[in-house]
């Protein structure tokens, strides 16, 4: 009997301990006051494609290997991945099987009429950026110093963009495109190596138009003081203080350009309109810069600001995600600037990153490529993440009342998800349930909408109380008036006598 009891206790203890182990999740988010708080998992690695399981179109093991992957885009249910090692672009279908490659392989046929120059024109050398728009595949072919545009069906070269006509390139500077995005009119926005003037804007015909969206140089107080006090000759010897160059680029369906800059810049993520002004919404609890809290001095963990390497905007333009290579995390925001969820981590498991390079949206999933693992990881929303996506989408479509139930579901899964309180509060505000709206909006720290709810609530209360207050005040005034009138009449009488 006693033995059984001990055995039972051991079992219970093991279960308890194993349970705490399972719960050690790495998901977190930020509270309204900027503290870190644990969160439920929002995205989980659903599929991992690497050299061990890469299949060709027939479902056999593919003869093509993955190398260092630099960029990934999705177009019409196909995934295009740029490979720096083998200098080609892989085309994967929705089952993640290799169905095609770019550029087309030209067979060495003696009878072919094509000469060497044409053959060479098709060869890529370090294709580090990709974009697809209207059936055209734009490749930033870095070492060939050109942007090359392929037709996606025929795989023929439509246009080559090189040698931009600008004084910047008259000296030793060569045009080495790194990343590219294209808007709906066919204008190309190119980030080039060693170009500090800004994003290069090319016309659809390939001629260079302008530099655009430049990062501004800022000096701190002491740098400005030193600069002010130094002479011309001294200034020449000082190292040039250049604008920080851009790292990556994406474009949303409305034509706003999302850019990533180096972490030294104040606005790491920018949403640039046609005039070149930054119009990114920053209404969230923390700024859209990746991690808001990080270690500065520590040997055991990566230190410093998030090193954002890529940004991707969802097809509907409601969400965008950024990829931090320093701590291997993906941060997803809605277009109001709220940090919706954080997922991913550095590690040696196949579902973790070692050197993530790029990400893109594939419907609701997010695809991340990893340079060192030579893998493509597909993240799929968990029920928790899915509810957040649905609720945010409905909210941004101004269907406020429908979001309420979804946010309540979110709170069942994670009661520390503060944006959900905001969502419920906003819905209640529209319903006219001001008192409850105030409670929820205060929990979610939304001061603007709290103020709106409180204004209505205060008016309601005043409507009840104010008539009585005014009545008493008028009665009091009337009484005083009557008294002074009577006094003056009496005085008049006395004076008269």
């Amino acid at each position, binding site marked *: 009997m006693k033995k059984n009891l001990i055995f039972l206790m051991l079992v219970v203890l093991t279960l308890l301990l194993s349970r705490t182990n399972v719960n050690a999740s790495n998901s977190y988010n930020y509270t309204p006051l900027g503290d870190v708080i644990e969160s439920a998992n929002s995205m989980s690695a659903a599929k991992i494609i690497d050299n061990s399981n890469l299949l060709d179109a027939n479902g056999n093991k593919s003869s093509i290997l993955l190398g260092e992957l630099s960029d990934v885009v999705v177009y019409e249910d196909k995934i295009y991945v740029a490979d720096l090692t083998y200098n080609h672009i892989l085309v994967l279908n929705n089952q993640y099987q290799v169905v095609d490659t770019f550029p087309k392989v030209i067979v060495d046929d003696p009878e072919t009429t094509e000469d060497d120059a044409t053959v060479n024109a098709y060869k890529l050398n370090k294709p580090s950026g990709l974009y697809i728009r209207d059936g055209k595949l734009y490749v930033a072919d870095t070492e060939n110093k050109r942007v090359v545009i392929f037709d996606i069906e025929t795989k023929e070269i439509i246009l080559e963009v090189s040698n931009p006509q600008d004084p910047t390139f008259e000296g030793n500077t060569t045009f080495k495109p790194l990343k590219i995005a294209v808007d709906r009119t066919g204008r190309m926005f190119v980030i080039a190596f060693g170009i500090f003037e800004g994003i290069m804007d090319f016309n659809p015909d390939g001629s260079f138009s302008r530099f655009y969206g430049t990062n501004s140089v800022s000096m701190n107080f002491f740098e400005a003081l030193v600069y002010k006090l130094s002479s011309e000759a001294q200034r020449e010897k000082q190292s040039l203080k250049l604008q920080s160059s851009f790292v990556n680029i994406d474009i949303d369906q409305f034509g706003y350009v999302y850019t990533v800059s180096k972490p030294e810049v104040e606005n790491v993520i920018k949403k640039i309109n046609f005039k070149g002004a930054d119009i990114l919404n920053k209404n969230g609890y923390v700024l859209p810069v990746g991690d808001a809290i990080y270690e500065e001095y520590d040997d055991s963990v990566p230190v410093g600001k998030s090193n954002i390497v890529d940004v991707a905007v969802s097809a509907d333009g409601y969400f965008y995600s950024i990829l931090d290579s320093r701590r291997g995390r993906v941060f997803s925001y809605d277009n109001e600037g709220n940090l919706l969820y954080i997922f991913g981590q550095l590690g040696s498991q196949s579902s973790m990153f070692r050197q993530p390079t790029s990400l893109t949206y594939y419907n609701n999933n997010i695809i991340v490529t990893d340079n060192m693992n030579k893998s493509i990881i597909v993240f799929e929303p968990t029920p928790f993440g899915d509810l957040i996506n649905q609720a945010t989408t409905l909210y941004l479509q101004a269907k406020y009342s429908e979001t309420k139930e979804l946010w309540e579901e979110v709170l069942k899964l994670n009661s520390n998800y503060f944006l959900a309180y905001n969502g419920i509060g906003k819905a209640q505000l529209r319903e006219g349930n001001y008192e409850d709206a105030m409670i929820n909006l205060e929990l979610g720290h939304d001061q603007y909408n709290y*103020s709106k709810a409180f*204004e209505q609530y205060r008016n309601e209360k005043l409507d009840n109380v104010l008539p009585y207050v005014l009545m008493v005040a008028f009665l009091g005034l009337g009484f005083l008036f009557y008294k002074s009138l009577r006094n003056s009449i009496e005085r008049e009488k006395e004076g008269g006598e």
Partner: protein
Amino acid sequence: MEAILSKLKKIDYKKTFVNILNDLFKVPFYILTHPIKGFSEFKSEKLRKSYVAIFYLVLMFLTLIISYNGNGFLVNQNNPENFNALRIILIVVVPVALITVGNWSITSLFDGKGTMIEIFSVICYSIAPFTWIMLPNIIYSNFLIIEEVGFYEAFQTIAIVLMCFMAFFGLLVIHEYGLLKTFVTLIATVIAIGVIIFIAFLFLTLFQQVYSFGYSVYREYVMRFL
């Protein structure tokens, strides 16, 4: 016991109460509205009461402590988890002490006529208008909407301006200075405070090193001989 009771009976409670109210509210208000005249009476005619100074110093940090959690949601960005009453008390007391010592050490070089207790009292009396405005402001801030937060901020600014105004004229009068000299001594006071903080840090690091030296000697002894 009997003696104490009879003494207690002799006190005119009503008059004492009126006197205390007079000291706590009427006198500071009189000084605020007539700074030059008020502070010279403060110096010459014993208008100054130390308990009033302490009262306002305490009221100051009580105001800040209440406002930390009591301020309305729209004007309150404090994290309630970080609330620390001791820190708020130090935030009030340490600057007052530093300004008192710094100003005294400078003005005694610049032929200031004010004593240390007078400087301390001037600073504490000048807190009075701040607390008068800010305590109602805490209540008022709970009934604001975001468009009206400007009122709260305006009152807050007025409170700070009045506090600086009163402290400035108080120091001017008790040291029997002109305007310019008061400015100069105030700037010198800031420098003096800097020097005091610097020396304090120096002492702190020195003591840390002495302590660690003593501790390592102790460890050496314990390891070798015990």
